[in-house]
């Protein structure tokens, strides 16, 4: 029954939500709405699992005094600090949590993403070497879009933005749509395999 019960639950839940999409009956929709509510509650518990996992992994590394274990102590302390001030002091505007969010978390996260600009510049310098025809096409298109999507492009050539929009709206769109359709067909196939029990990797089996 250890294998059969999860398979039955998966089949019923999957089939139920497929049916919900096509059945307009209010009664059926109300049941689906209730089940959606349960799903939201279960998903919220994943944060507790996440915190538990972070603590478990870092506690082991701190206990063994692995490399950079001091940083892991700081991580755990910051985790409990923000949890504590959020739970006991609230998260509204003007709270201590809000102050730390605005003055530490926001600038740190913005800085991490800002660093990407420099690494992308360095990567573009090294990666966009025209070694083959395909590499040439990639480099030329990338340069055209890069210049056309900023005001300097329009200063260089008045129709540059329109040309860039054509690249985005025709060849790029065609390729992207093909990928989207392919991915959607793959998702349908995988979903049906999971619902019918043909795909069981989610249960931790081979």
């Amino acid at each position, binding site marked *: 029954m250890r294998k059969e019960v999860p398979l039955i639950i998966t089949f019923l839940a999957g089939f139920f939500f497929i049916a919900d999409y096509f059945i307009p009956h209010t009664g059926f929709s109300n049941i689906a709405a209730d089940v959606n509510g349960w799903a939201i509650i279960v998903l919220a518990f994943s944060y507790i699992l996440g915190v538990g996992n972070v603590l478990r992994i870092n506690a082991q590394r701190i206990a063994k005094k692995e490399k950079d274990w001091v940083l892991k102590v700081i991580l755990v302390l910051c985790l409990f600090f923000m949890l504590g001030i959020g739970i006991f002091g609230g998260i509204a505007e003007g709270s201590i949590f809000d102050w730390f*969010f605005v003055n530490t978390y926001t600038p740190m996260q913005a800085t991490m993403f800002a660093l990407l600009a420099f690494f992308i510049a360095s990567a*573009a310098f090294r990666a966009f070497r025209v070694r083959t025809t395909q590499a040439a096409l990639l480099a030329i298109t990338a340069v055209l879009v890069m210049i056309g999507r900023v*005001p*300097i492009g329009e200063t260089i050539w008045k129709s540059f933005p329109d040309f860039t*929009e054509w690249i985005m709206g025709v060849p790029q769109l065609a390729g992207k749509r093909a990928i989207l359709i392919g991915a959607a067909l793959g998702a349908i196939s995988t979903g049906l395999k999971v619902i019918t029990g043909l795909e069981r990797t989610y249960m931790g089996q081979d």
Partner: protein
Amino acid sequence: MRKFFEFINKLDRRVIFIFVALAIIIPLLRPLNIKFTVTEPVQGFYDAIEKVPQGSKVLFSCDYEPGSRPELFPMTVAALEQMLRRNLKVIALSLWPAGPPIVEEALSDVAEKQFKSKYGVDYVNLGFKEGREVVMVSMGSSIPTTFPQDFRGTKVSEIPIMQGVSNFSDVKLIVNISGGYPGTKEWVQQVQARYNIGLVSGCTAVSAPEYYPYYQSGQLRGLLGGMKGAAEYEMLVGRTGLGRKGMDAQSMAHLIIFLFIVLGNLAYFSLKKKKT
């Protein structure tokens, strides 16, 4: 010349970092005011909000965190300004955990200070709810059940703007500012396709190419892509915001990267020719 190209080929990336930093800092300190025009997807975003009847309710989903703030916050405040100027009632929410404080900041700057709008009557921040697509589908059944309290802890049933709001049929448009997953793609797949409601999107420049198929098919009525999209939109709304201010810096940075790519290829071909 050969020595120069050999130097370029082995260029320390810190030199590139310095040039990119200067290209960004100098225009921010001394603006160049490079002119630009509005593109069609941005015009579509603006027109979609302009067509919503005055006094209607609009769902404003700000699905991003501080990492995407430079690109998305300018469009957030510009969209709020356009919506409040048209006397639209804004129901804001976020599907990202760190989104609500950013929404609160935008609402405070624009709704409270600029338009003197009243919280709970003209706008509301429902906060964050975990569940991603499940939350979207759940809102299709009942928004008050999905968000029983707002971000400030007030029961949604006691908030005037939420009276008569049951599900998506009670809002005229969804304005989505998206930094990734969950975001615009999920709103299109789970909500727009199923409930046939108007949807416009503002997104990061790196995500914009992915949403062009949805814009072309009409599933998205408008699309703002990155800081350029924000700058064009600010121009339409009549606002001099961070989007427009950042355009000079972005222009120069892109130009510098382009010059380095050209230099790199010149060095590569020159040295390759000499080897053969």
